[in-house]
């Protein structure tokens, strides 16, 4: 597609805005990039397409690209009680994200304005908890949840997702707080603002986009989480990934329906990630890379 536009004659080298970078052949780049993009995106595209098929159209060789679209599969999913799973997922995701922000914003702020002794240790304590394998703690978590009657509740998921996202949120938010010009905070302090007022009235409005980006990262991880949901919930609090897994066994042969369900499951995070893609790298590297 774009290759056509690039084929325009002329001394391309002179028009390149970033001279000197490692650039293979001029035409090769867009072609390869588009091929890779289509290849990587294809399973997602195919999922989206198959969700609008009849089952008969889903099982064909060669695969069908043209067919009469239908909403039957989406209807069938909701008839099969997809809604409670969606609600559980939404609750676990939204509430855990709010709880993360409520705890991480003050914490990140406290760490950003420093002189707390050993702030660096605190920061690395947080990140080290993210590095420990989840499986390392699942056994007692299961037993404790059982003893506290928390098995198969959304509450246990909220508690765990909050802890899971806390280190990323603290690090990421801190990197945004560090970008607030110090003079602004000092001006607020001279005007007699307390630490709290300084945070709420002055700093928070400035880092609102950063908070939104952090929230999105937390949403992505919580929404996609499977291991805890699989092991700690059953019928009442099961989330969307658990619903999808039901397709392996009971409905292994319903591809169109599976695709429709998978589309619904992926869409919120896909959209969120596309919107926040500029901030994604920051969240994934805990704020280390901007």
């Amino acid at each position, binding site marked *: 597609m774009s290759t056509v536009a*690039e084929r325009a004659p002329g001394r391309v080298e002179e028009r390149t*805005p970033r001279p*000197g970078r*490692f*650039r293979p052949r001029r035409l090769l780049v*867009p072609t390869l*990039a588009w091929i*890779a*993009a289509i290849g*990587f*995106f*294809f399973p*997602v595209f*195919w999922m989206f397409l198959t969700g609008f098929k009849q089952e008969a159209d889903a099982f064909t*060789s060669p*695969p069908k690209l043209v067919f009469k679209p239908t909403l039957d599969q989406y209807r069938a999913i909701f008839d099969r009680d997809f809604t409670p799973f969606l609600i559980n997922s939404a609750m676990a995701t939204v509430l855990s994200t709010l709880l993360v922000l409520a705890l991480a914003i*003050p*914490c990140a*702020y*406290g760490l950003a304005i420093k*002189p707390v002794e050993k702030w660096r240790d605190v920061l*690395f*304590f947080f990140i080290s908890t993210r*590095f420990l*394998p*989840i*499986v*390392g703690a*699942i056994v*007692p978590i299961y*037993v404790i949840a059982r003893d506290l009657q928390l098995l198969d509740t959304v509450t246990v998921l909220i508690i765990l997702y909050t*802890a899971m996202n*806390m280190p990323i949120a603290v690090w990421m938010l801190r990197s945004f707080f560090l970008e607030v*010009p*110090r003079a602004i905070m000092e001006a607020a302090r001279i005007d007699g603002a*307390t*630490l709290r007022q300084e*945070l709420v009235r002055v700093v928070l409005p400035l880092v609102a986009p950063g908070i939104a980006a952090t929230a999105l990262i937390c949403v992505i991880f919580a929404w*996609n989480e*499977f*291991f805890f949901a*699989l*092991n700690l919930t059953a019928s009442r609090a099961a989330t969307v*990934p658990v619903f*999808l*897994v039901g397709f392996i066994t009971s409905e292994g042969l319903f591809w169109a329906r*599976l*695709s429709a369900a*998978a589309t619904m499951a*992926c869409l919120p*995070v*896909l959209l969120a*990630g596309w919107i926040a*893609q500029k901030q*994604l*790298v920051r969240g*994934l*590297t805990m704020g*280390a*890379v901007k």
Partner: protein
Amino acid sequence: MTVTEDRTGDRAVALRERAAKAAVARRNRWGRRSLILPAMIYTIVVTQIPFVITIWYSLQSWNLLRPGSREFVGLENYGKVFTDAGFRNAVVNTVVFTASAVLFSLVVGLVLAILLDQRFRGRAVVRTLLISPFLVMPVAGALLWKTTMLNPVFGIVNFVLKPFGVGTLDWASRFPMPTIIMVAVWQWTPFMMIILLSGLQSQSTDILEAARVDGAGPWQIFRRLTLPHLRTFLELCVLLGSIFIVQTFDSIFIITQGGPGQATTTLPYFLYLQAFRRFEIGQAAALAIVTTIGTIIIATIALRVLSNLFKGEELAPR
């Protein structure tokens, strides 16, 4: 100073001022601590206490399916873990899986990052499409690969490969390990790509320009300037990637169930079987401790790299 110290009145004032200042400082410090403590206490309670309890459990023989079977057995579980052929197999599988997935996704991610660092029409769209596999719910991604993509008869992969003489090959049972590695590479390449792309774009254009003026070719510039510049970013990719990829559970659970046999049983999946299929709490706990210690070794290196990345921060003016 010597003059003021002669006069006791001034001295008292100075002392009082100093005390007041210290009180303000103390209040400030507690103000700041009170900002940090809630998040910290929460994290300790939810993540560290279970870990300590895991150590305690690992010293017991305890099966949830046999009530009253709980007793203290010391290090016996660890002995079982290390003599278990299944455990050694899981360790080897984990290393093979993680190392290959990290390596391939890093290489592909680097190539894609280099492509995306060029200007061409539709670059934003290409980037958006390329990051999508990372955003797809891993469970959904794994299910799609298992069914619509890799099904021997109706799958797209075999359809595409038909001209190359691939018939109805059942990838997941014939090549189980390459299959889950491939799915992991599909999922994690975007992760590597966006980190490396940030690295490429943070290069100073002046230096590249200067090198070009001095007559350096594109390959030379890449080898001598870009790669060294990318080093920190590559390290970050490898370390963060390893930490995340080693925990892969979803795709193994869905695509191969650790099989055929134990061909794709990695540590997380092995532990899952011990804890939630056989309910051997004590043994699962011992396994968890061993896994965690292994991870800590990698994580320590990772933290050092991160720490290096942050070293400049303190000195830099804000």
